[in-house]
């Protein structure tokens, strides 16, 4: 579930408020958006993909709260790692062009 909105990275564009399909975030008048409905997070990682500032972190645990530490996440390269993997963001190319599902299917039909 979503565990972090980094106040130092967030540029207050409120993209996460717009794109979250289950309405987890809420815009705040003078600050970054807040995680208003944590329990409604379905761990789909879409907010991370749409965050232009790599300010969000969705922990893979779907049911339990995970304790996270921003500095450590940054150090381990996990802030924005999903966005990097799919090739979204300035100067990157979508990795959909490198999709190797055809190879996976070939193995499956063996």
């Amino acid at each position, binding site marked *: 579930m979503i565990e972090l909105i980094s106040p130092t990275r967030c540029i207050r564009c409120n993209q996460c*408020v*717009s*794109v*979250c*399909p*289950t*309405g987890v975030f809420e815009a705040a008048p003078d600050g970054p958006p807040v995680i208003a*409905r944590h329990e*409604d997070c*379905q*761990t*789909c*990682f*879409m907010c991370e*993909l*749409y965050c232009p500032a790599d300010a969000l972190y969705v*922990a*893979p*645990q*779907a*049911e*339990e709260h995970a304790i996270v530490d921003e500095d450590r996440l940054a150090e381990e390269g*996990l802030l924005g*790692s*999903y966005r990097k*993997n*799919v090739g*979204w963001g300035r100067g990157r190319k*979508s*990795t*959909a*062009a*490198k*999709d*190797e*599902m*055809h*190879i*996976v*299917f070939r*193995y*499956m039909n063996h």
Partner: protein
Amino acid sequence: MSKQEELRLQTDVLVIGGGPAGAWAAISAAQEGASVILVDKGYCGTSGATAPSGNGVWYVKPDPEEREKAMQSREGMGGFLADREWMKRVLDQTYDNVNRLALWGYPFPVDEFGSSYRKSLQGPEYMKLMRKQVKKHGVRILDHHPALELLADSHGVAGARGINRSTSKPWRIEAAAVIIATGGCAFLSKALGTNVLTGDGYLMAAEAGADLSGMEFSTAYSLAPAFSSITKSAFYSFATFYYEDGTVIEGAGSQRGRSVIARTLLTQPVYARLDKADELLQRAMRLAQPNFFLAFDRLGINPFTDRFPVTLRYEGTVRGTGGIRIMNEHCATKVPGLFAAGDAATRELICGGFTGGGSHNAAWAMSSGWFAGRGAARHARTLGALGSRRNARALSESTGIPARAFDQPGLPDTSEIIRAVQDEVFPLDRNWFRRESTLRSSLNQLHRLWHQLKNGLQARDGNVVRVREAAAMTATARWMYVSGLARTETRGMHRRDDFPAQDPAQHYRLLTGGLDQIWAAPDPTSFKQFANLKEESVQ
């Protein structure tokens, strides 16, 4: 709430739901010249099961031999309930639409033979592109505008009303035709991307008088790491499954062996390791499904060398095949002005009773969306200028199913009803393995919950949309289990422990419907259709 100023709009076609089916429906209706509004409970582009996932597509070149093979592939598994004419139509439309995606700029990869490979779509990329195209076609998108109920008059469906989630302001959209593209129902199980899929469209359609079909084919559970939402059963074809002590579970597998896993999970944890994947395949898997590895990478698990606990996460009708009954090639329902597309509609027409998961559902979404969009636009045209100005009434007024929250102590909270419904549909020993006694006891409880919620629900968390979701999930579970009880055989994904064989006398599709009284009965048209087909014995 009703005192607040209401957003009022008129349009030819209203599309409810902004996943792939809704997006394709909106584009196709707009191309027919209709004015179109698309409302989504969340955000068109991220909502639903497609956006966060890797999606196979039933894309088959128009080569007679390849097409024949494609049509045959699931016929037996589906219990011979599919319809070849529909398969042909869907294969044709899917081929066209996927090629359209290429023209629109979807970056299809090039395979080892140097040709553009079009059987796989990356969800985030695909749905971002669809949103862009929907807008380009002049469709007005209203995000975070869940529909709560339909409007209708004596001529049929005439729009919908709902709420703006961010302002709590109500909206009312009058339309000459409505397309339900709200997806299936996974009962808030957190299977990837499915928590917006709570059966809302089934309830709205049933309130208008539409039938459902194939609701017994609702036993889909997907393999996932026990801690995670990432449901991707296909990759587990390269897994070995283990008991806690590290010994191999004989017979366990991602396909036919999934029942062994289900049975084991009833008493103890199951572990998996993707140890059948060589280096080339490991690389391909990473490039095919980046989010599959996200969960592992973040927890420091190497799924190819480490054993990790797995679970079966319920996917209900999202990867089942049941849904709103389709009456003709325009995906019209029984109710004038009401159309259904995608997982909200029955997918038995192309997959029978076996999961539409993977390629078939993706193909069905883009094709049925396309057909419904065209059908709805034409319907609007026949109604003329007055089609969207009819002073119709909201249907919950006559059905008495609550469409708002009541702030009254003593009434149950939405969360209580939802948890109680989940307790009847999640357990493997009720839903994966079905038998008369458990189906009956679940139905008793579900009918009781239905009567309880009809007296009104509180929404203590302030989320009034949950009122309709709770009602929709309760109704869906009842349609599922009444159908499951009526089909006294094992066919497709519907497994009856007390009737383990397929019964040639039940070679028909099963309809269901009703709200306070639920009924199930053989589809008379499918009787006729299958009458001259000799049923082959399966497996």
